[in-house]
């Protein structure tokens, strides 16, 4: 009997749309990380003093670390809700390969949490006196980098979703894996401040994105099965 209607594409799209609809119905869930992102960036001038030259020097690093922490903060929402109401079991037991469905979940998570960071970044560029050219590159590094953060983070979340107090453990697992993205992204923005072309750094981040896109979902799918068992 030919499976009546088994299309991976529609399942992928359904899951993606479901998470976007859910995010719309719980506004606060994706506004808080943005406020957190801005708040953390605003703290540094208070801590280091208002000298624009000094601030300009540390701006790329500060913005990127804040983006890292904001992304970490939102990772929990990737599977926690689904675990608690039992929907996680349903799509791990679906007729479709879990790693593909995980990609849908991660894209939805990125659209909800990563994209707003990118849209807000120019504001922070102004706040931390970044020159215009560098802000453009900053946005580009965030555009390429935040999906990698979501992809790598999804592996950590999948490993700790079953634990009651997995939060701190999640950051211990995931932050070391964020180091390569942080290094090349901040370096790209710093170099852009001096006007030197940064295609090398951006292409490396791009390479990381494709590597993460290829490998992370497999690890996440395996981790979900382990956490659920």
């Amino acid at each position: 009997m030919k499976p009546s209607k088994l299309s991976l594409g529609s399942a992928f799209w359904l899951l993606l749309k479901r998470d976007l609809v859910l995010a719309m119905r719980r506004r606060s869930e994706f506004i808080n990380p943005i406020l957190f992102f801005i708040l953390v960036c605003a703290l540094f001038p208070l801590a280091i003093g208002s000298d624009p030259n000094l601030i300009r020097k540390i701006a790329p690093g500060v913005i990127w670390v804040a983006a890292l922490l904001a992304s970490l903060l939102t990772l929990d929402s990737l599977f926690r809700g689904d675990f608690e109401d039992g929907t996680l079991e349903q799509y791990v037991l679906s007729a479709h390969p879990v790693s593909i469905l995980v990609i849908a979940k991660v894209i939805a998570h990125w659209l909800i949490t990563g994209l707003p960071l990118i849209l807000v970044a120019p504001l922070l560029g102004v706040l931390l006196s970044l020159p215009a050219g560098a802000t453009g590159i900053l946005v580009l590094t965030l555009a390429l980098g935040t999906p990698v953060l979501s992809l790598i983070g999804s592996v950590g979340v999948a490993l700790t979703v079953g634990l009651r107090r997995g939060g701190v453990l999640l950051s211990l697992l995931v932050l070391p894996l964020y180091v390569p993205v942080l290094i090349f992204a901040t370096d790209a923005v710093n170099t852009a401040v001096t006007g030197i072309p940064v295609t090398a750094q951006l292409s490396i981040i791009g390479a990381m994105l494709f590597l993460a896109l290829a490998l992370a979902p497999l690890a996440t799918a395996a981790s979900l099965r382990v956490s659920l068992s």
Partner: protein
Amino acid sequence: MRFYHRLASPRHFYRIAGQWIPWLAGIFFVLLVWGLYESLFVAPTDYQQGESYRIIFIHVPAAWMSMFIYFIMAVAGAINLVWRMKMAEVVLVASAPIGAAFTFLALVTGSLWGKPMWGTWWVWDARLTSELFLLFLYLGIIALYGAIEDKRTAGRAVSILALVGVVNLPIIHFSVEWWNTLHQGSTVSLMGGAKMDPRMLRPLLVMSFAFKFYYGWVLFLRARNEVLERERNTSWVRELVEGKAT
């Protein structure tokens, strides 16, 4: 396939490990004495760093071991996930603390060795920084294993984390190397460019072999405990415990 399967049985692993332990310990001590003798007495004084360079006979083998053990753990993780062999999981879990200890040792001795040259305890040197993040990867594995109650699930979770870690390790190392050349130009790398004087190279190799046998010895000690812990309810453990005089 027969032997491979027999090794997978906890009881058999426990007996074989027991037989190997005295040999591994014996060879370790021989190599250690020889290595220490060579490092402290035979190796000449370094024209630049004087005697303080002798720290490399601990620092470098420890750094090599930290990478070597993580690699072993990743391989054990892969075996555990693909063939679901319980003993691979035991090897991984037993190795984690040893690897973390070697990484910590490499970090501290690296900083002790660098202090006379750089004047500060910590410098963001490429190798030390990679070693630092390797320590975080180890601690991540130990923390994750501790956080999950059910041992079998915990074992499979850390197997995945070890594999994810081993893929990221070279990337982190490459990124840190690149990052290092950006910010400090080229500080004199710890090892110095000149070709190693053979009288310096030999103790390094002897010590690194000694550390490998040490790893084998302690791994089997810890693995046997892990097997006892997991097979607590089986009949062969009961007989073993009743049989033991102490």
